[in-house]
Structure formats: structure tokens, C-alpha cells
């Protein structure tokens, strides 16, 4: 599904990603962990096509196609979804209207007709029930004044609406209480299939108890310095990152 090859990226001439290699196959869940500032969110943003990051070297291949030149919206149309670590507040645009626009623009890009209004309503109802989101919430301005947990739940609601092929969840667990974590994880699991894939960026094991990864990667100083099975996450939670830093001689 996704193949990242020797990816180097910088922002304002500061090198942040220094040679990332990662392959994610359909049906897999990958977890990316690593200390603050190691480049996890940067990697997520670069995959999603944020323009402030300069890709200096390497390539990102989605289903056999190099997506380096594609704009963020074109990547979204191809099925990439990024759940933001810090979702952006957009005053004056309601959640519902935002979703309608996102879905219809995606359909337009694929040469499809707009989704009929009743179908849209049905979809919104179904997905908001899945994530136990109050309907009143949906008429509020997107993320404006939402609590941390509400923002994260709303991100997954959007993911459920858009049904991406590759979902990248950047610290979606932070800010969620136990109940919300269960609801959100359940939402993600419901969407999982053999045809799509998930990358989970997190600092904590607790989300991985629900969304069980096939692989765990440790990102440090712009490189993946260790990869392993799901048990690696337990080890990291227990022992921290110092032993890895020592191992790689950083």
C-alpha cells in the first residue's frame, strides 16, 4: 500500500527526516513511537502533503504510484487520511458542512455526482452513532471550543465518513478519557479491513491494547532506529527510550 524510501525532509532549511524507510501493506497496522521532537508528526504531514516541508530526497509510493508531486487534496482523494495531533479550529464552518464539502469534493475528483442529501444525512447519522457523537455537536463550528477529547473523537468521525485506504492517527489517544479511547478505538477497528491500513503514532501502550499493531517502529532523530513486533511497545513503555538511544549510539 505505502512504501517510503530513504525519505529526507526539512523545514526552513532544518533537516528533520533523515532517511526514513517504511513499508506498510494492506491489512496491516503499524505503530510509530519515539521521543518528542523525533519527527513523527513531520513524517505524518509529509505523507499527507503539507507544503511547508521540503522533501529533499527519497520517495513516497502509494499503491505503486509516486505521490511526491501531488497536492494534499489529491492525496486525500487517493485515500490518505491524517488525524491531526492538533486539529485546527475553523470558526464559521460547521462540522456537517465541512464533511459535506469534503465528501462531495472527493467525489467530484473521482468523476462522481454529489452525494444525494438524504444519503449524506444517513451516512452522518450512522457514523456519528458509531462514535457516539451528539447530533447537536455537528452543527457547531469545526473544532472551535471543542475539548481536547472532542477534537480527537471528531477526527475519527471524519475518518469514518471518508473511509480512507491509509489512515495515519497522530496521537489520537492523547486527551481521550478511558471511555472515549474505547469508543474511538472501536471506531477505527470497525473500519479496518484487509484492504486498508493504519499507522498509529503514539507515546502510550494503552491505545495499542485496542488497536493492535503488526509492527512497532521507533523514530529517533529523523530515522527509524528500531522495528519489532507489538511487544516492543510494552518494552518501550517500561524502559523508555534511553536504551534505544544507547543502542544506536546517539
Amino acid at each position, binding site marked *: 500500500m505505502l512504501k517510503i524510501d530513504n525519505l529526507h525532509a526539512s523545514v526552513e532549511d532544518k533537516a528533520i527526516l533523515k532517511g526514513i524507510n517504511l513499508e506498510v501493506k494492506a491489512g496491516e497496522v503499524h505503530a510509530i513511537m519515539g521521543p518528542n521532537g523525533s519527527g513523527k508528526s513531520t513524517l505524518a*504531514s509529509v505523507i*499527507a*502533503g*503539507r*507544503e*511547508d516541508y521540503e522533501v529533499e530526497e527519497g520517495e513516497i509510493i502509494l499503491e505503486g504510484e509516486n505521490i511526491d508531486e501531488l*497536492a*494534499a*487534496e489529491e*492525496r*486525500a*482523494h487517493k485515500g*490518505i*487520511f*491524517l488525524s*491531526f495531533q492538533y*486539529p*485546527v*479550529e*475553523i*470558526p*464559521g*464552518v*460547521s462540522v456537517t*458542512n*465541512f464533511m*459535506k*464539502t*469534503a*465528501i*462531495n*469534493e*472527493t467525489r467530484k*475528483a473521482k468523476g462522481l455526482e454529489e452525494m444525494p442529501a438524504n444519503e449524506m444525512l444517513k451516512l452522518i447519522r450512522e457514523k456519528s452513532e458509531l462514535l457516539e457523537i451528539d447530533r447537536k455537536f455537528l452543527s457547531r*463550528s469545526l473544532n472551535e471550543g471543542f475539548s481536547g477529547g472532542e477534537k480527537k473523537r471528531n477526527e475519527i468521525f*471524519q475518518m469514518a465518513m*471518508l473511509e480512507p485506504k491509509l489512515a495515519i492517527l497522530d496521537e489520537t489517544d492523547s486527551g481521550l478519557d478511558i471511555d472515549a479511547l474505547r469508543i474511538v478505538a472501536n471506531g477505527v477497528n470497525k473500519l479496518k479491513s484487509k484492504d486498508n491500513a493504519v499507522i498509529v503514532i503514539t507515546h502510550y501502550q494503552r491505545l495499542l491494547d485496542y488497536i493492535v499493531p503488526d509492527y512497532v517502529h521507533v523514530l529517533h532523530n529523523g530515522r527509524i532506529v528500531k522495528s519489532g513486533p507489538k511487544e516492543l511497545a510494552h518494552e518501550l513503555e517500561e524502559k523508555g527510550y534511553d536504551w534505544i538511544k544507547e543502542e544506536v549510539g546517539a
Partner: protein
Amino acid sequence: MELKDKLVSSFFAFEDHLEDASPIHDIRNEAIKTFEQKGFPTKKEEAWKYTSLNSVLKHDYSLFPKTENAIEYKDIKPYLIHDIDSYKIIFIDGKYSSHLSQTTHDGIDVCLMSAALAKPKYRLVIENYFNKAATKDSLPSLNTAFSSEGAYIHIPKNKLVEKPIQIVHFSTGNEAALMLQPRNLIVVDENSHVQIIERHQSLTDNPVLTNSVTEIFANKRAIADYYKIQNDNQNASLIDNTFIKQKQESHVSVHTFSFGGKLTRNNLNFYQNGERIDSTLKGITIIGDKQHVDHNTLVHHIEPNCESHQDYKGIFGDSATGVFNGQVVVEKEAQKTNAYQSNNNILVSDKATINSKPQLEIFADDVKCSHGCTIGQLDESAMFYMRSRGIPEKEARALLMYAFSNNVLNSVKIPEIKQRITKLIAKKLGVNIGFDL
């Protein structure tokens, strides 16, 4: 010949033809003298520092166009709010068009200035109100000198006028260049309520210069809601001079939507003469190319316990230029005034500019006055957020701009106007999305 000389020299021939009551002749004669003496305003004047009329004064305008034209309803329908039942006062090249209009004398007067100036039954209202709010500045004076046609609306007391009134001026392009000077008088008596929509529209790209004056008098507890839709062609310029006198407990709102035209100057003046008056001035400006829109507002608080609310949003692209000059005067007697002013702008291009200048002159000590002005760019992280969800750049931009300005629409009371403005915004931003309806 310079436009000024042409105007002055053609005045007497023009005036001679009019068979109005003599006081109006005197007013016109005074006014042309004032204009002759002051001339067109230049950038040397503080109030015109950022707006130069040079480029619009250079044309050889026809002042008295030929009357024949073959405009039909289908030609003008796109420019009307046609999905509501309304009164219509339609002018073509400055001349009243009876077959396109729908006026009334049934309990209220929705008719013509030319009739009101000439007929004895209107004499009292004309004597009491005509030219009683307009200032003696050069452009209003010029309009006064040539005032002969426009809308005359008189709502006697205790009338709730359910149908909005549309005043629309069309220019046909029959003249290579045309100057229009419409003159509107609106008197709303005690406890009455009226809603008015005004638009100036040229049907071709021939240059048009409109110097209009509208006087609105809101008597005790009257309510007047006025909507100005400014979306004219690229060679049409508008100088709108609106003067509003309010008596106690009256509420007047003016919404100005400026999306088009070459040069637009809105001189909007509110004078509060009574207690517990409410004045609302709101606007959305979205322009590009080399368009220029200048909002020059004045709210004069004279008596205690009154309010004013100003909220202007501007979005400027390409080499567009904007001006907001908001003057609020609170007289010594006007205690407990609550005056709010806000002007927020987004510059979408490096070449666009906005000059925003609040001017607060407060002589009372127990007042609440606030003003805020912001100039910014579109939030780039919001752009990425939206695009990462599949909304293309142009549409994301448009959605953000719409969201930035749409709270101005909250106070629009006619849903069809709201819809129309939303559509105009989408069109102006070049997108085909539904925004939030």
C-alpha cells in the same frame, strides 16, 4: 471640457426645464454654487486621502441620456431578488421605467422623486425632509443641484410594510459614457417598518459614474433595514452618499455588500437625534483585480442611551485596494452610549492593500466604546487541514473566506437576500460550493 465645467455649464439649461416648487429651485441653485466652489474632492482632503477620483472623472460622460431603450424584464431579472414579492422602482439610464416597476400609493407612498418634487400633495413632506440630512460637501451638493429623479418612499405611522422595496438603477450602454445622479428620499414615520434593497447595475462595460444621494428619516420607534448590493461591472463606479437621521427608539440598519465595480465610495452617515436609538452598519467587501472600495462611515451620537454597531469585513485579492474610515462622535450629552466598531481584513495577495482608520471622538465620560481593526492572511494550517480532507485549495480558501465574513449575514433579516449574497460570494470566489445554508 473638464467634467466639472461641463456640469456647471449645463446646470442652468437643466434647471430651467423643471417645474418644481420654488424652494427646490433655490436649494438647487445654492447647491451648484457650493459644488462650483468646492469642486470634486482630491486626495489632499483628509477624507479622500486614499481614494482618487481622477481615473473616473476623465470620461466624457453624457449627463442627460436619450430615453429610448428596449430593456425587458428578462434583461434585468438576474439583478433583482426575484424570488420574493416586492415593490420595485426601476430606472433605466436614470429614467423611471413604469412597465418594469411596481409602485403603490395604497396607504404608503412608494413612487418617484420627480412626482414628489412636482405635485402639491407631497409638498409638506418635501419641505420637511428634502435635503435636510444631506451635508453641504461637494458631491452631495452636486447631486442636489441635479436632483430630479429617484425613489420617494413615505411610510406613514403604524405601517408594517411586508413587501421589501427594491430600488434598482440600470444603465444600458446606449451612451458611450454615462453619469447618473439618483436622489432618494425615505421617510418612515412612527412605529413603521420598511425594508429596502438598492442596487446599481450597468448592462454593458461602458463607463458609468453614479453619484447618488439617499436621505433616510426614521421617526420615533421606526425600523428601517437597508441593503445595498454593489456588484457592478468593471467600468462602473459608484459614489454613494447616504444620510440617516434617527429619532428616539428607532432602529436602522444598513448592510453594504461590495463585490464589484471599478471604484466604490460609500459615505454612510448616521445622526442620532433622540434616546435609545440603535444604528447598525455592516459590510462585506470582496474584491480583486484593480478594484477599489472605500467605506467612509460616521455615527454621530448626540443624546444618551444609544447604541451603534459597526462590523465590516474585507477580503482583498490581486491589486485591489480597500479603505475603511470609521468615525464615531459621542457628544458630551450622549452618556451611556454603547458604540462598537470592528473592521477585519484579509489580504489574499501581496499587492492588495487596505487602509483602516478608526476615528473616535468621545466627549462624554460614561460610555462604552470599542473598536478593533485587524489585517491578516488566511490561516495556512487551516488550509492544510481542509485540503488534507480532500477540499481543493480554491474551495478551501473560499470556505475560509466565507467563514471569515459570514457573521455579517446573521443580521440580514430576509433569507432570500442572505441566499443571494452567499451565491454572489461563491461566484466572486470562483467556486461552486454551497457554503452553509
